[in-house]
């Protein structure tokens, strides 16, 4: 072996960086979250109360389920924008089954199965006709919504029979100020993060998102993985829909409208790139928090309703700018 001690390699000279648990993107967004919390507590005496923070958490819970799915789909290099409609459809199915006196287990199962099947359809169609999932889900966004509207005949499915004890307890109760639904969401998020970071599946998912052709060549099943992750996204959207029935005692066929954009915004703020291969669930949660805090502050500040969307937009820009600033200070090339 020739001596190569003197061969300079690129990493020499550069300080060997410590690997952080949080990457750059999460760091930027963490700064944003803290900043908004400081602003919140300085501008409103109600912001930092337990009740208020609990309601912020409650407020992001239903969207949160969707974000976990959408986040994973983005990491795998696809985009899912049908989740809002899946949420609505699953909740309508569950509510209709309850109304027609199906047992609770079946009704819950029906809602979850609806989500799963919708997600599978997205995935299988996208792979079958070789079109990016964003196109397919743009289409199914309308189709699933139409099915929900048709099933519910255009109006909310209300007047459910007295809900089974368990469902009511689960939907209305909680531990201290944190509702059970929020806890379920956090459990789902933690599981997703563990799988993503520390298991072979998460590893493959990110590799596939980063360079699908290379992943194919190394023997990863790109198509199957993408079908499965889209199915998962449908499943958690369905779960969110089912939970919303427990929470609201009713299901609106237009429920979840607009969630697709909010979920995309939260995941992107959270550092999940649109081109796949990057991101973490922690980041997604932080992105969600930004969205939740803003919605809360808009009301606490009494912002004119005309400006509601505007403020969210400005905050999104602010968050991206912060992320950019932190990234730039890290001096990363490109």
């Amino acid at each position, binding site marked *: *072996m*020739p*001596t*190569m001690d*003197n*061969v*300079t*390699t*690129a*990493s*020499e*000279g*550069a300080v*060997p*960086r410590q*690997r952080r648990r949080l990457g750059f993107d999460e760091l930027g967004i963490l700064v944003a979250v803290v900043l908004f919390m400081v602003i919140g507590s300085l501008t409103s005496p109600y912001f930092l109360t337990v009740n208020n923070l609990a309601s912020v958490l409650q407020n992001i819970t239903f969207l949160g389920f969707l974000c976990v799915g959408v986040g994973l789909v983005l990491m795998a290099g696809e985009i899912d924008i049908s989740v809002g409609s899946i949420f609505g459809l699953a909740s309508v199915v569950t509510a209709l089954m309850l109304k027609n006196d199906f047992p609770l287990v079946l009704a819950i199962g029906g809602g979850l199965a609806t989500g799963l099947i919708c997600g599978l359809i997205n995935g299988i169609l996208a792979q079958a006709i070789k079109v990016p999932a964003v196109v397919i889900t743009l289409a199914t966004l309308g189709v699933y919504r139409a099915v929900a509207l048709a099933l519910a005949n255009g109006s909310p499915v209300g007047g459910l029979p007295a809900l089974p004890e368990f469902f009511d307890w689960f939907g209305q109760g909680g531990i201290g100020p944190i509702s059970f639904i929020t806890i379920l969401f956090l459990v789902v998020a933690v599981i997703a993060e563990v*799988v993503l970071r*520390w*298991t*072979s*599946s998460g*590893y*493959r998912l*990110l*590799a596939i*998102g*980063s*360079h699908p*052709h*290379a*992943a*194919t*060549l*190394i*023997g990863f099943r790109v198509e199957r993985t993408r079908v499965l992750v889209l199915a998962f996204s449908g499943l958690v959207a369905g779960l969110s829909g089912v939970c919303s029935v427990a929470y609201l005692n009713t299901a609106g066929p237009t429920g979840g409208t607009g969630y697709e954009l909010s979920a995309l915004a939260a995941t992107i703020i959270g550092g999940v*790139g649109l081109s*796949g*291969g*990057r991101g973490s669930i922690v980041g997604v949660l932080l992105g969600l928090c930004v969205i939740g805090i803003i919605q809360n502050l808009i009301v606490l500040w009494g912002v004119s309703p005309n400006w509601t969307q505007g403020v969210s937009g400005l905050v999104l820009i602010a968050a991206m700018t912060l992320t950019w600033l932190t990234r730039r200070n890290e001096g*990363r*090339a*490109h």
Partner: protein
Amino acid sequence: MTQASPLLAVQNVSKSFGAFRALDDVSLSIAAGEVHGLLGANGAGKSTLIGVLSGAHAPDSGSVAVAGTAIKGGSLQAARKAGLAVVHQELMMFPDRSVEENIFASVLPAAPFAFVPWKDRRQRVEAVLDRLGAHIDVRRRVGDLPLSQQQIVEIARALCSGGRVLVLDEPTSSLSQPEAEGLFEAIRSIVAKDAAVIFVSHRLDEVFKLTDRITVLRDGRVEGRWATADTDIAAVTEAMVGQYAQHRVNANAAPLKAPVALTLRGSAPGVRDLDLSLRQGEVVGLAGLEGSGVSTVMEMLGGVVPVDGSVDLGGTALRLRHPIDAIRAGIVYMPPDRKKGGLWLDRSVSDNIATAAVGRMRPFSWLRKSTLDGIAEKRLEEVGVRTNALYERVGRLSGGNQQRVLLGRNLESRPRILLLSDFTRGVDVKAKAAIHQLVRTLANEGITVCLSSSDLEELLDVADRVVCFRAGRVVADGPSTGFNKLSLLGTVSGVAAA
């Protein structure tokens, strides 16, 4: 030559793309413990054969067997299971993931949701990199690494996978000599463990140094087979490209008296206190190993990397903030990575070349297709690609031919100063000689050419003057006749020359 049952047996494989027959009845058999050189001109079918081995292409007919068991054609999983590990000619890395994750990807637990053993992972990855003699921070994003280190990471991934048959398609094309030596060491140690290696390269000296046997492909057919010891470079070359006089392009013997065309003074990340002058009509070779700053110097001149200092072009100061500033001043930069930085793989050859002509036009000027095609045709002839490839998508050309299209495109930018970074990467011997000749012709026309190559010997062949870099600084500068291969390597690596 032992005639045990071969570890890898390729029998009568044919493969066509449309009407074009890329492989025609190719057979190959490789024993355990053997390093087998696979040679051929650009477009001969080497990568296609490797595609068949890896399962990326399903063969039209014929079969592949590993250790006596046939593997299903066109199945990447089957090939991997059978123990084939492939390094592709084009990099197949996950740019967003770390070095460690990229390398470990080949030995991930197959089961879904299996926890990845982290400690074990770090150790295995570092062991493999050590074996290659590479010092790479395993936590860095692969996308941020220079090309040569990406190539090493890809090799490390194949080595790590524990396959018994290692197939390397031009693994050294962007490696410097010491890096290549590290690879050869690793190859020898794995074949000693009852494995076999297929090695593709256009650097024939490497092939003769490393391999036990050699197979030459020509137009998709096996043209010759030798035990390495029984043949020589001339015979192999003739089998590859037919007869041709192998000559060294003569560099100018005396230092040029021509006026200075360009002076660069300054720094950039990785390059310190540079003071470089290029004379008109001069061919200057920038020599340096990985990380020496050579690429960065090229990028500084090309307007890709901002210069902290001054650039002086024939007496006027230049501000290079964007490649367009350089191009307007007649400085044309050809990037080393044709895929990432050069070509539109999904567009036609004609389009790729014509882009340079379009770049010169004003906004909203009218395009005439026939004019553009004419331009492309002329350049194709110049770099030796058949003009009937005009409407072919560049991505379908073989690696070497892609490289030539890139060169043609840069000629179309009409340089006064031409910067060629690793300019003959993956080009076959004959074409390489022709490109060298082309460079000389350009220089005689008064064009200044500044080139770099991971093959240091090539610089001595072509350049009038060689500037040596180490750790971002110029360590030597003189006429190429003042160096030989060994002293040059010594200078750039800092090891006292013999």
